[in-house]
């Protein structure tokens, strides 16, 4: 029986945050996490940032920032944990992409490209590590009640809601529940999947 199926007696979660794209967590994260916890069962790449602008007027810095935070950080996060997970012959990676990856709305060339990159990374990496019993999946949240929506005025919120078949924004807990499911043992045969959490928009 594979030892990887036996649950750890004590599970610990750590959150790592790097605001500077030049100081992405990388391997240090992995070593720190391994030293503290001995093994890494789940990685959730959840960093997100958007700087919306029409491409014609988009500052290069906005393009870089958004690519760094959304796509490059996902690469570094995955690379940091893979050796440990390969050695364990088990692991779960969940990447938080966005509905924008699939919808590609105007004004979000940087964000849509970055998140679409996360989706493609997810599907490609899933094939690379499936043999080691490591699953890699992505979730694509739509409009979720977080600070990302706080910039919307009342009218904009109304207009956004009217585009959602469920006529409401999603709750962060509803995204978290999907991520948790993809990280649990029951989801063991799901890999390379992209799960929309959008109230039916797409």
């Amino acid at each position: 029986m594979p030892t990887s199926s036996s649950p750890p007696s004590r599970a610990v979660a750590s959150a790592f945050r790097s605001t500077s794209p030049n100081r992405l967590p990388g391997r240090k994260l992995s070593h720190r996490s391994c030293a503290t916890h001995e093994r890494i069962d789940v990685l959730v790449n959840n960093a997100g940032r958007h700087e919306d602008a029409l491409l014609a007027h988009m500052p290069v810095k906005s393009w870089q920032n958004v690519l760094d935070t959304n796509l490059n950080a996902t690469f570094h996060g995955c690379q940091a944990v893979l050796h440990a997970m390969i050695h364990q012959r088990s692991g779960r990676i969940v990447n938080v992409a966005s509905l924008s990856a699939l919808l590609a709305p105007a004004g979000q060339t940087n964000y849509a490209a970055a998140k679409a990159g996360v989706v493609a990374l997810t599907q490609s990496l899933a094939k690379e590590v499936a043999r080691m019993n490591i699953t890699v999946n992505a979730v694509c949240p739509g409009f979720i009640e977080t600070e990302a929506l706080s910039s919307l005025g009342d009218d904009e919120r109304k207009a956004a809601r009217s585009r959602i078949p469920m006529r409401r924004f999603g709750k962060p807990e509803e995204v978290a529940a999907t991520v948790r499911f993809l990280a649990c043992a029951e989801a063991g045969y799901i890999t390379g999947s992209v799960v929309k959490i959008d109230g039916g928009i797409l």
Partner: protein
Amino acid sequence: MEDAPALKERIKNLMVENLMLQVTPAEIGDDLPLFGPGGLGLDSVDALQLVVALDKNFGLKIADPATAKVVLQSVNTIADAVQKKLAA
């Protein structure tokens, strides 16, 4: 330091176990090419697993693809690299 035949035996067991090969360790010749036709038929994903396994089991670091190409030719070349590492 363990003798060469024992070390090669260990490496073969490691490969069969880690790569879930459908052959027995005894069926892997010391000089059998690990990759390509006419060999064991490993692919790049197997190579990645092998690199991690050699690191964890022997502390052998294979840092770049060029080194991997040299070290991962056969059980013999892996054993040589491990011997060198253990002697260092």
